């Protein structure tokens, strides 16, 4: 399978991905994965209708996303996965998706979240999901744009949320 990139981004498909990431990675299949989004017909319609990059767009529950990425159909593709939340990223990995790096993109402020940066606010459950990803030996990066640092970001998360990583 050729999953080029997994990004956890609650904005799903948006400007940064269409403009910056698409020109960087030459995506030919964009998979949005989150169980709730996949069950919202209006959101599925929107995601498929308005994405202009010429790539195939799928919206799948997390389990189906992993199954697809392990299927022969995925072998010829350059796949970009957008998981909505860190919890979705963690589920991808726990269901067997083999990937060396997970990238943390936009996570907007929600009730109970705390600030990591101007564009990333994490909940306790999100931090715990990232911890599980880290403990599986997967590198976590925090890149909004392709030109940002590919350094391991876990130490910053650990330092920012000392009570939630326990």
């Amino acid at each position, binding site marked *: 399978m050729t999953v080029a990139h997994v990004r956890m981004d609650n904005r799903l498909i*948006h*400007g940064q991905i*269409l*403009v910056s990431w698409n020109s960087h990675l030459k995506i030919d299949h964009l998979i949005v994965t989150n169980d709730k989004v996949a069950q919202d017909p209006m959101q599925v*319609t*929107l995601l498929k209708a308005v994405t202009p990059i010429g790539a195939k767009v799928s919206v799948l529950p997390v389990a189906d996303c992993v199954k697809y990425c392990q299927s022969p159909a995925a072998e010829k593709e350059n796949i970009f996965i957008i998981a909505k939340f860190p919890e979705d990223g963690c589920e991808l990995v726990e269901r067997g998706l083999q990937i060396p790096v997970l990238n943390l993109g936009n996570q907007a402020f929600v009730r109970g979240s705390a600030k990591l940066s101007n564009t990333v606010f994490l909940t306790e459950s999100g931090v715990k999901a990232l911890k599980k990803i880290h403990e599986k030996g997967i590198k976590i990066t925090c890149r909004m744009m392709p030109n940002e640092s590919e350094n391991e970001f876990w130490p910053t998360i650990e330092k920012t949320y000392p009570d939630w990583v326990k």
Partner: protein
Amino acid sequence: MISLLVISHGGLAEGLLDAMQMITGPQEKVLALGLQESEAPEDLIERIREAVETLDDGDGVLIMVDLYGATPFNSSSRLFLESQKKIEVITGVNLPMLVEIVISREGQTLPDLLEQAFQSGQTGIQKLPDALRKAKSI
């Protein structure tokens, strides 16, 4: 009268309205919204919904966004699907488009205004006339 709602990343929408009113003078039923870096699409949809409620007098609202496929567009499209109000959405908002439709919207229907915005947005982009390039080389 049709209302205009300009939505962009950051401060562009606000700036466009500011620039437009330098040319057209103060205008009613125009509003700008800017997506903030930390803002969720769901929160932006709610702000757009409120702005449409505030603006609309029954003639409809033309939502003008900066970039096709990006969050201001996605959130506007979602509202288009959900709302019972007369809403249209156009992308690539620029100053020529905005100036032209703000002064010609009186008495127009929403589909006509959308078409006019679509045309004026494109014809508003021009290269320096060849006459000037020739004049310089003489």
